[in-house]
């Protein structure tokens, strides 16, 4: 799971603006952006909870890397459940809403964690869509 969306770092290139005259501020800003781009390697606990007729998982606590997108969580869940492509699966946070698939686990955890867990509900039918 942890490596679900890991991609190799882009090769270091000589950035064209570094060779021309650029203000100190710009360089500082570019450096700051590089810092913020570093992926958060920390992990958070995601707790899966079945809703309605959805099958229950044997293990329902997982440590998932924060920088993963929610899409990766959905992929992981489908795999654990042995779902085939096309089998319906709806996922929600806190029995309330479906997050955007490109949001990160880290962002969702910061906003919606309950008692240190991010609770992901899953269902075979649309529940709070």
């Amino acid at each position, binding site marked *: 799971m942890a490596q679900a969306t890991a991609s190799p770092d882009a090769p270091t290139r000589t950035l064209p603006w570094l060779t021309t005259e650029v*203000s100190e501020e710009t360089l500082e*800003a570019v*450096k700051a*952006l590089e810092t913020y781009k570093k992926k958060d390697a920390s992990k958070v606990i995601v707790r899966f909870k079945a809703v309605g007729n959805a099958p229950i998982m044997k293990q329902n606590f997982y440590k998932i890397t924060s920088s993963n997108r929610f899409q990766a969580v959905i992929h992981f869940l489908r795999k654990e459940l042995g779902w085939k492509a096309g089998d319906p699966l709806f996922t929600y946070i806190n029995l*309330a*809403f479906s997050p955007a698939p490109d949001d990160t686990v880290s962002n969702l955890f910061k906003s*919606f964690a309950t008692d240190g867990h991010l609770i992901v509900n899953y269902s075979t039918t649309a529940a709070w*869509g």
Partner: protein
Amino acid sequence: MSTYGTTRHHHAPALGGTYSTKDRVTDYHTTLFRRLTWEGTVPLEIRVDPKELPANSDRGLECYYMQAPRVSYLPLIMPEIRQFLMDVVFDDAAAKVLKEEDWWFESEEGTLLKWHWPIGLIYDNHTISASVKASAPPASNVVTPMKLILHLASPPSDKLLLSPSAEACKQAFMGQLKEADFIRWGSTKRMTGLRKVDQDGIWEGIKEHTFDDYWRVAAKVTPAITSTRPPSPGPPPSSASLHTRPPSADTAGPADRDGAYNVRSVPVRLYLPDGPVLQDLVPPLLEDGTPHTLGHYLFTHVPLLFPSRAPTPQERRSDLAYALVQGVVSPYESEMAWLGATLAGADGWLNVCVGICRN
């Protein structure tokens, strides 16, 4: 890009005075800024990937220019683009075999454009990405069209995340509205309390781009800016205690409870050039009871780019970065609650896009 003075010109701070908590008139300025947000458009230049143009297409006319509403979505402007291509560019034989569900967009630089992002966000995100590129002109008032490449086949579905249909876009939109609702109030009961006709109506408002249809429903879920609001800064203790109660306190009147300054948190996302996107809980008031300003928000979340929460004019001359809200460079003293209630996108989210200054 231009700068507006957005805050506090319409409320005299009534220090220690009495407030009418029943007064919930959406004031002129709130409506004005909501209208400006709604009417905001961005220029787009859409060009079919020349390698994918079907035989017998009219190559002289392959570009389509349009002003697209910021609050709209790519799947919703597809019919207009399709109409143009079918009428003017493709011949009948090609028109018959092309499948619209295979179409997808990329920026000129090769960034996939997501179906579920508001068009205004796609444009602003492109502006800030360009701010770090060598050839970028310094931030100026010149508005240039964003160049989109339209591909006609082989969509990278795993990266686009959603199908290009208006229905998928609606589901994503409703999901975002609910998430915003949850952020504000800790539950989605305002959204789930909407009747089916209203839930459909709010999307129709987007689809047809009708301000009144959208706001007729949106007003039920968006916090109000009332004429009662916390005095700031440094209120006397008596009025401070009146206004720093927790948002959930039951003593507040109904108008106050729905107020922008009484939400638990403002739905905000912060976009940096070429990522990442940051989302966190953003309370409308700070612990000392003063409004949470954009300057404070930027200073707390990206201090390396905004090293001061309220820079002096001298410090501002060496600004490292700027923050765009709906394409407008926004002043540091703007209050997050106010921005969230007036300049959020139609999906309820306030998008703050940070670009770097090239001095």
